[in-house]
């Protein structure tokens, strides 16, 4: 299983090529990638920057669970899930998920499953900074 999964939680800038190179395989026919990017607005308000913090060891465990489930549930070859913690600027990349497969449909499904599940279960928190204050995303009803 280990050579099929690459999970990373890092304070450094993400490298999309590294994710691609990890999942690329001469027996695969296609690679689907999801790249998150920091948006310059939320509900019409201008976002200046944002910060991700995490419960680091548990976040790595949950990311690994997602990768393992994706391998078990979908007909894919390899998956890489890399996420950043720390301060990010507009246009920066908080997350990269890359999936390789012989059959592209499985790669699309697995990639979407991974990002959907990540946003539900992985203990990572985003704080958005506006001109006039800051907000923990999703925290309030």
């Amino acid at each position, binding site marked *: 299983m280990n050579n099929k999964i690459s999970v990373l939680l890092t304070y450094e800038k993400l490298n999309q090529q590294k994710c691609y190179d990890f999942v690329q395989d001469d027996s695969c026919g296609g690679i689907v990638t999801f790249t998150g990017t920091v948006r310059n607005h939320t509900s019409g308000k201008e976002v200046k920057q944002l910060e*991700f913090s995490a*419960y680091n*060891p548990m976040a790595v465990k949950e990311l690994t669970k997602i990768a393992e489930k994706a391998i078990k549930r979908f007909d894919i070859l390899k998956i890489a899930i890399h996420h950043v913690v720390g301060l990010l600027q507009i246009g920066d990349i908080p997350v990269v998920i890359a999936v390789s497969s012989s059959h592209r449909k499985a790669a699309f499904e697995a990639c979407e499953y991974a990002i959907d599940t*990540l*946003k539900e*279960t992985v203990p990572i*928190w985003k704080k958005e900074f506006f001109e006039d204050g800051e907000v923990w995303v*999703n925290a309030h*009803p």
Partner: protein
Amino acid sequence: MTINTLFFGIVMDITGQRKTTLTFEKEMTIGDFQVYLLKKYPGLTDIKNFAFAVNESYVKEDYKIQENDVVAIIPPVSGG
């Protein structure tokens, strides 16, 4: 019983702490612990919902907390 408690995100802001160690005379479930926390930190009622993890895994309300468990309060996540 000693419970090591971790706070993250907005919960860290509300409690003003990253972690704390709490001691109780009797056994507790996560549900009991939640009731205790909401009394001790009334600001927590402002949050949409929160989950609990014990030793880095999610647990349900009926989990019985063990001596020296590390209990993390997990406010709504927003990674990705």
